[in-house]
């Protein structure tokens, strides 16, 4: 016999749908109360300390200099420009770090699978040593123990009298474009376009006829040959600004400041140890039957690697690799410990100390990192969707 639920005591409370509603309403109430409390407290505190809120401070004069900036910047620039300089410096060290960490990581990861016992052990030791030491210790080590121990500019270590390494950084010759160099850049752009077209055509051709074009060789030839030919034809319009010792420091060339070098070294070496493990597990995740099957149809070794092993390994490697890249970008904020002028150091550090706009500055800094994370994750999802195993 069915009884109506309302006639029974407590039945309403036992109804899962009602209970879910009540719980969520309570959660919403709690959250709203928390937010109201935080906002009122913060407003009261800000008023008591005489801090005005808003983003108006971004237009004010910063008044401090930054040792490295990719765009024009001086003490007279605004805090808004400080933010951009910091962001660009963060992106610079992250980009450099990602490239170096990938190269080292793949080399070490593949070495770990080498049949050479010594090489495999060396790679394993690399991984175990560097991933178990905090990144901050490594950054401080490279900066204070290694780079600060280098000789003064007058006693620089030099390579071919063009590269100079000293306590103030690495000084390199800088290329200076002469009039007419634009033609080479245009040629390079054209070459890239041609190679992209060629790749698409080759894929189309192979799908239709089965004939494979030597894309790699042709592509490399076009990519290097075309700009080089134009460069030589226009009379080599490129000069080198070679650094020279003048007084106590070098004049000319470009200088990589030691802060950037230390951060770059530490970030690449640390992240590479994680990438190496990812690469190893990725390659090992390809079932051995795949390689055996390729051998059974007598595919040559390099094609087995390129068409069978790598595409399947990449499916495992790329998602984890992306999260390592994100970690590297976030870890680059440790720059502040050695004074590399990244976003956190110049904006959440110096600017915050000078203006006291804690909430706006921290929120903006966090928003930048969140945005980078979201963009990279979105790209990752796109890649995942494209490379997903097509199963019936």
């Amino acid at each position, binding site marked *: 016999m069915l009884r109506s639920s309302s006639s029974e005591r407590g039945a309403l409370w036992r109804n899962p749908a009602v209970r*879910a509603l009540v*719980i*969520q309403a309570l*959660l*919403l109430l709690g*959250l709203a109360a928390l937010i109201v409390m*935080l906002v009122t*407290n*913060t407003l*009261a*505190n*800000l008023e*008591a300390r005489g801090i005005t809120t808003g983003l108006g401070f971004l237009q004010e004069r910063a008044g401090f200099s930054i040792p490295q900036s990719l765009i024009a910047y001086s003490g007279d620039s605004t805090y808004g420009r400080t933010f951009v300089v910091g962001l660009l410096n963060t992106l610079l060290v992250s980009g450099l770090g990602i490239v170096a960490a990938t190269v080292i990581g793949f080399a070490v990861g593949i070495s770990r699978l*080498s*049949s*050479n*016992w*010594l*090489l495999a052990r*060396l790679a394993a030791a690399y991984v*175990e*040593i560097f991933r*178990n*030491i*905090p*990144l*901050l*210790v*490594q950054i*401080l*080590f490279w900066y*204070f*123990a290694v780079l*600060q*121990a280098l000789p003064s500019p007058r006693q620089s270590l030099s390579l071919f009298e063009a590269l100079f390494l000293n306590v103030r950084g690495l000084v390199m010759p800088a290329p200076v474009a002469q009039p007419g160099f634009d033609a080479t850049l245009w040629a390079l752009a054209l070459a890239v376009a041609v190679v992209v077209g060629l790749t698409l055509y080759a894929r189309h051709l192979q799908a239709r006829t089965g004939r494979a074009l030597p894309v790699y060789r042709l592509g490399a030839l076009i990519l290097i040959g075309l700009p080089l030919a134009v460069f030589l034809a226009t009379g080599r319009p490129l000069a080198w600004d070679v650094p020279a010792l003048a007084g106590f420091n070098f004049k000319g060339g470009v200088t990589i400041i030691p802060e950037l070098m230390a951060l770059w070294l530490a970030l690449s070496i640390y992240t590479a140890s994680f990438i190496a493990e990812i690469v190893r597990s990725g390659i090992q995740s390809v079932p051995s039957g795949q390689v055996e099957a390729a051998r059974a149809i007598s595919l040559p070794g390099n094609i087995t690697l390129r068409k069978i092993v790598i595409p399947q390994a990449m499916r495992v490697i790329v998602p984890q690799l992306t999260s390592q890249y994100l970690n590297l970008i*976030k*870890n680059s*904020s*440790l720059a*502040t*410990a050695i004074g590399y002028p990244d976003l*956190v150091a110049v904006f*959440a550090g110096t600017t*915050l100390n000078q203006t006291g706009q*804690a*909430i706006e500055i*921290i929120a903006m*800094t*966090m928003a930048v*990192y*969140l945005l980078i*994370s*979201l963009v990279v994750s979105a790209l990752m999802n796109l890649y995942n969707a494209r490379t997903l195993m097509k199963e019936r």
Partner: protein
Amino acid sequence: MAEMATRIEMIEARRPPDLRRGVLGWLRANLFDGPLNSVITLCVLAVLGWGLWPLVQWALIDADWLGSTREACSGEGACWVFISARFETIVYGFYPEAARWRVDAVFMMLGLLIAWLAIPRLPAKRWVGLFALVGFPAVAYVLLLGGHFGLMAVPTREWGGLMLTLTVAVVGIVGSLPLGVVLALGRRSQMPLVRGVCVVFIEFWRGVPLITVLFMASVMLPLFVPAEVEFDKLLRALIGIMFFWSAYMAEVVRGGLQAIPKGQEEAAKALGLGYWRRMGLVVLPQALKLVIPGIVNTFISLFKDTSLVLIIGLFDLLAIIRSGLTDSNWLGFATEGYVFAALMFWIFCFSMSRYSQHIERRLHTGHRN
């Protein structure tokens, strides 16, 4: 009848098979297997000889070990006197000397608890684990902070060194694991609001660097609470670290929850178990066991990142060593200082990672797909 093949002359003796055993055979198979491998081996040996030997010479052979002042350093190799002279500070920070037995007691208790939980054969894991999560923090709190039971009060600004590093790590671990479990359950909840709050919370903390979280904890948290509430600097950092790592922990636990077949929960539901009992008795025990390696790996990351508290002005192991480098009596020992710091962190992290691998092998029941 087929004619039998017969042979009248002796078969010529054949060469013995390739040497595949013994030291020489091993060398040939693993190091000099073809020209390419031989070249690689020689290159690696050259690199090791060129890089490793000077390191050994610097760190061990030419090093100075004994003494208590700078004069003991000969300057040829590493001068470990720099470390041994300030070893007490490195371990206890500025903790008053008379009360250091309390730190020792907490260290000892922690060591015993970890050993008990890590050695599989010891009984009563559940009760010891419960004590480690509830009883031990309370005892450690009373012992370290003092101010009760006639113990001298030691404010947290006098804490430092290895003791502070371990405190931050243990509080971070004990705090972030339960919070992470709750967040992971919330993320899989049927209720859209609960799920939404958990997703936003997790993705927010995972998207920002820990340094900005620590900055936020040190400059923004005081603005969030009424002016009369005084927040301890260490407590602020701990809150930041706990929230930050609970998000990572939640993702690890979620991986475990997803791996448990749906039938488990449905069966528990059929038995009439409510949500918390279904989770606590059926799903979570299986899921957590599955992700122990992931949890330990998160612990390792957490432990390494405790060093970041030096940026907001706390004197952890690294910061104490670093501040020793600016001592005018001991200038120029940056290498020794950072190598020692690296070694200390390495020992902790490496043993944790070995334990995680060991657990992984033990839990690996043999079926893989």
